[in-house]
């Protein structure tokens, strides 16, 4: 596999006169868990649609594992698994029957369906009709279907939405295991905590363009406000910018005089960073 599992070069997708994706350049390395974030309408879902062959690009090139998505779709198709944002199971079939159907399409043995049901901890509900599943169970079944054929690339749209904390942790563990096994995982989400906890790198898109690309830690470093909030003994609040001499001196004097009731550093706030980068609030 090439060092870059996914290469997006000059991607442009236009709806009428509106450019949903406007010259996006992005390389996603093999074996990384990549988060694609952005406000609604930023172009991340459209990008995912191009990657999954649901929409042809207006311009630009997209390759997955070296195959051009537009020209070599037949070769690309078995290489990825996809978890959409809404479930799309045969509700009248059991979980096991759903997976066995897709196992037959992918040409994998039926026992693989049982393995992935175990993996997502749905083995106890394997023979229950999906119509009786909760939203979280359906989401986990989507993940089971996506990893059924052990694909080298996984796309996930809001993978932990509707999941309880334990199930969300399970999904993150499965994704990390896939990455450790060499797979490339691309997820889109609005959950900044998930991005922070799970992703190796994050791409921030806004108005169809990439506006930031780095690891969550580096983004924190680059965009955390170096400000200390102090609540004085008399109850008044004060903020000190520690990047300035005046701020550092004022904070030191207050603490030395024992007039500070509490001191808090401002932690990395992805929402604030996001506002700064995109000029748009998260929705």
């Amino acid at each position, binding site marked *: 596999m090439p060092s870059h599992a996914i290469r997006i070069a000059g991607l442009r997708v236009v709806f009428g006169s509106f450019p949903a994706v406007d010259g996006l350049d992005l390389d996603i390395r093999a074996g990384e868990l990549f988060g694609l974030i952005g406000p609604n309408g930023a172009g991340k879902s459209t990008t995912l649609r191009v990657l*999954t*062959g*649901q929409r042809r690009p207006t311009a630009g090139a997209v390759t997955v594992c070296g195959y051009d998505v537009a020209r070599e779709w*037949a070769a690309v*198709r*078995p290489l990825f698994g*996809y978890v*959409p944002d*809404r*479930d*799309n*199971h*045969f*509700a*009248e*079939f059991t979980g096991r*029957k759903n997976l066995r*159907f*897709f196992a*037959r*399409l*992918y*040409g994998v043995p039926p026992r693989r369906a049982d393995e992935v049901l175990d993996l997502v901890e749905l083995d106890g509900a394997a023979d229950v009709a999906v119509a009786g599943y909760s939203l979280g169970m359906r989401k986990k079944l989507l993940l089971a*279907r996506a990893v059924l054929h052990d694909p080298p690339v996984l796309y996930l749209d809001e993978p932990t939405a509707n999941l309880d904390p334990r199930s969300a942790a399970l999904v993150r563990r499965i994704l990390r295991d896939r990455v450790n096994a060499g797979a490339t995982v691309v997820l889109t989400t609005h959950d900044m905590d998930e991005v922070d906890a799970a992703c190796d790198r994050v791409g921030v898109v806004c108005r169809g363009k990439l506006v930031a690309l780095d690891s969550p830690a580096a983004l924190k470093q680059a965009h955390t406000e170096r400000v200390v909030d102090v609540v004085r003994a008399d109850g008044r609040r004060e903020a000190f910018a520690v990047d300035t001499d005046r701020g550092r001196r004022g904070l030191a004097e207050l603490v030395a005089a024992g007039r500070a009731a509490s001191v808090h550093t401002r932690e990395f706030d992805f929402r604030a960073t996001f506002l700064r980068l995109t000029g748009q609030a998260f929705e």
Partner: protein
Amino acid sequence: MRPHILAALLRKEWDRHLANRGGVALGLLLVAAAVLMGAFAPDEAAGSVGRVGGAHHCFVEYDAETPLVAHLARNVPPELAGQVVFRRLADADAVDGLIVYDPGVGSIQLRQPAGGAVRVSVWYPDGDPAALARFEGWFWRESRRAFGEQARRDGASAPDPAFGPDDSWLVLEAHGRLRDRAGSAVPELVVDRKGLGGAVLDVRAAVATGMVAFALYFACVYLLATLTCEERERGLLLAQALSPASTTEIIAAKALFYPALGIGLAAVVAGAYRPDVLAEPFFWLSLAAVGGGFLGVGLTVAALARTQRAAFLGAMGYLLAVSLVLLGCTTGGVRWVPALAVEYHGPRVLHAALTGSVAEDHWGHLLAAAGLAAGWLALAGWLFRRVGWQA
């Protein structure tokens, strides 16, 4: 086309029908009805004519453009305008030399070889001698006027004797008196009235034909369109299209499964009514042609409708629209438009197969149905490949 994928898709369709028991129940009901129909009064003779009496159209057919024909054509009263159709006998549709008329249609034929006697043949729908009464009344009245004018032109002063246009004997008697006064200026009149003949509709065969056609329509249009759109609506088509199954394979599986289901159900219904029919190649060819046509309609509806509800309305709306067009064309005397509908040819070939009365013209209907099926399938395939699986 990979066999393991096709097999998986076909099995999925089958499993879905087993899981959704409504369709299975309706299929069983159809078969039960056919069994009951076959079991009760199996040897009952054809009992009644399945048609409302009267004639909605009357042809005036002639062998030559005589003054009488011209007079009649000029004097069609407004209340019969559009219901009286003039044509040369040579232009009438004929099979083996016999003129064929649609149900609810009669004819008044005029022959006057070499200026001799006028021979009038009144052909009324079989079993309904009064069906053409309105048309005959007009015809005799205007014939009488035409002959009277002819006599006057030739110098005969002939006051009209008593005349009753609703009675052939009176017509002939009055005409005889006119001839007595006008002499050879008025040609001799020969009248002859007959039923059109042909087979009387066996109601049980008609019902069986309807059930067989319904079985095909039910599977190939209704089930295919609604279940395909349900898959689209729920993102299931997308899930399959993103798997190794190609669009062609997804369509092919549906194009195999639903006609097979429809033909199987139709064969069971037909076999329950008349088991012998299952050994007749024409029956199977008819099922294939009509099933193919309905498959094309179903795929077209499935490609155009976005939701299951829209597919249901599309399937039912299509049936209603075609029925209205066929009814309108039949009663309006429009002959070529119905021939463009599978639903026009289908029941004819299926009825012929079920009643063992296949004639030469039924092969024409079969070919027409097959041709229309090919057209529908081409349209549906193009549409489905273009927009079909997308959410």
